[in-house]
């Protein structure tokens, strides 16, 4: 044991750490990482996305709003709830759409099928990657990995019809006997 300590002193000979004061709560590794990730969003959010924090002291829980300015979902305002736990970045953030929308990769409960949110998540990825991924789902909805099967089938078989159904659903109408939430004109 003493040997280890002398190694330590050797290693840190020049370090000038001072004595300890009373012990207080520490900023956690997950908080520091999220703080860094949020700062890096500066170039990403732009005009089409914004975040809001119900409790500004809790940066692990927030809402992301995406307002696509092109593509089939242009004009809509889509809200995603981000819930990050203390095991981030080992665990991915939990992301859910808070509205009921008509989208092949988002089910009626708001679950999102995005590879980096589940099977392809790695600690080297960051919030920026997730947010860019979500934005991409609105520009290029993907019929080959469906979570809402009817919507995917619709997109695959009749792209123009699908576009019309997206518009209907976005203005709060019903598609195939399912009512959707109005997400435009806010």
């Amino acid at each position, binding site marked *: 044991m003493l040997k280890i*300590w002398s190694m330590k002193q050797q290693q840190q000979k020049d370090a000038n750490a001072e004595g300890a004061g009373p012990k*207080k709560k520490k900023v956690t590794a997950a908080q520091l990482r999220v703080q860094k990730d949020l700062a890096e969003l500066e170039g990403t959010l732009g005009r089409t996305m914004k975040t809001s924090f119900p409790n500004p*002291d809790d940066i692990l829980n927030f809402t992301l709003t995406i307002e696509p300015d092109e593509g089939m979902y242009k004009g809509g305002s889509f809200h995603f709830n981000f819930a990050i736990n203390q095991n981030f970045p080992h665990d991915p953030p939990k992301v859910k759409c808070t509205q009921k929308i008509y989208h092949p990769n988002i089910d009626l409960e708001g679950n999102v*099928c995005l590879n980096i949110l589940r099977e392809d*998540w*790695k600690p080297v990825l960051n919030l920026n990657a997730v947010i860019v991924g979500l934005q991409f789902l609105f520009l290029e909805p993907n019929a080959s990995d469906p979570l809402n099967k009817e919507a995917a089938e619709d997109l695959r078989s009749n792209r123009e019809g699908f576009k019309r159904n997206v518009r209907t659903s976005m203005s709060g109408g019903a598609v195939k006997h399912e009512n959707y939430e109005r997400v435009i004109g806010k």
Partner: protein
Amino acid sequence: MVKIPACSKTMRQNIDKLPRTYLDNLLSKPGPASDPDWVPGPETISALESSKVLGAGGLGCEILKNLALSGFKDIHVIDMDTIDVSNLNRQFLFREADVGKSKAEVAAAFVEKRVKGVKITPYNGKIQDKDEDYYMQFKMVICGLDSIEARRWINATLVDMVDMEDPESLKPLIDGGTEGFKGQARVILPTMNSCIECQLDMHAPRAAVPLCTLATIPRQPSHCIEWAHIIAWEEHRKDEVLDTDDPEHITWLYQKALARAQDFNIPGVTYSLTQGVVKNIIPAIASTNAIIAAACCNEAFKIATSCNPFLQNYMMYSGDEGVYTYTFDTERKEDCPVCGNLARNLTVNPNMTLQDLIDSLGERAEAQLKKPTLRSEERSLYSQFPQSLREQTAPNLSKKLSELVVDGEEIGVSDPAFTIAFKYKLIFVS
């Protein structure tokens, strides 16, 4: 055929009376690999006997038994679990009559009774219940934890405890873990070599199936169970929190999964598989646990006595395709959020405003932060970005530090110009 004699009562009494000859031999004369500065003899032996060590977690039975039999006399054990019938096949300190009791308490009582002269103090709860004052009493910590979250917690705690003025504050952390036929043992000297947070990227993420596969075309029984777990529960019982220890909840998931499996003609969904998938139960093999626990306890013994060099610093054991072990020295990560930048003391006037503090950080030689974002554990003090957070935290800029933090509180400061966060402990001086 080899006949193994049963251990009779008289034999057992003899074992207890045996002086620990071999152990004492090892600690009484230097060997070819022992450190030239090492002084063997009674001093070393008493150092071992007085080493207070802490063991915790799933490898606990093996670790506790090994520590007690290698001469450690003052052992504390923490475990939050109670004994389940399914533990009895490998956790040999427990009997059928113990089912439902605290693992820590039963294990401590068993080993204390079996190994004369050892004192074992159990704590039935989480490692997170204890604070730095508690961990300060030990010579070292040996962990066989079952989650990465718990490992990160104990690692951060032990790294933060290191105080240059106090040699006793450096607590070696020995971490073991197994999964099926694979395992690892590592020795962490907090702040001196790579810590668990530095090595976080090395952990294989939990295998997950794409959500769309679960929702559309399941192929495996586990897909049906995951579907029930993630999708069906949300749809039908959204307002209830799923408790994986509640038999009613597991039964509900099992029935949903079974119905789905029948729709897709997938055999193999059972109640116990449902439990396994939902609780993420990793197969535990008794002998892998024994190998890893043995490696950990030998390192503890060598560190406590200095009799031989210890592991530097990671040993992987792979027994799933033949047997392979490899030992390598993982490097510290410069930008590790836990050990990369230790908290520095910063004396501040509690009457200065947050804006004043930010301005002074820009002038400090080691930081020179241009656009710092600051937070304490409880509060976002000031965020540069996103805009909404900047607007919400801007009113803090004109507040006095004493309104935002308490004396001695730690703050984390990050800046886009640096990959690593700085940590400061604010010491109030008026």
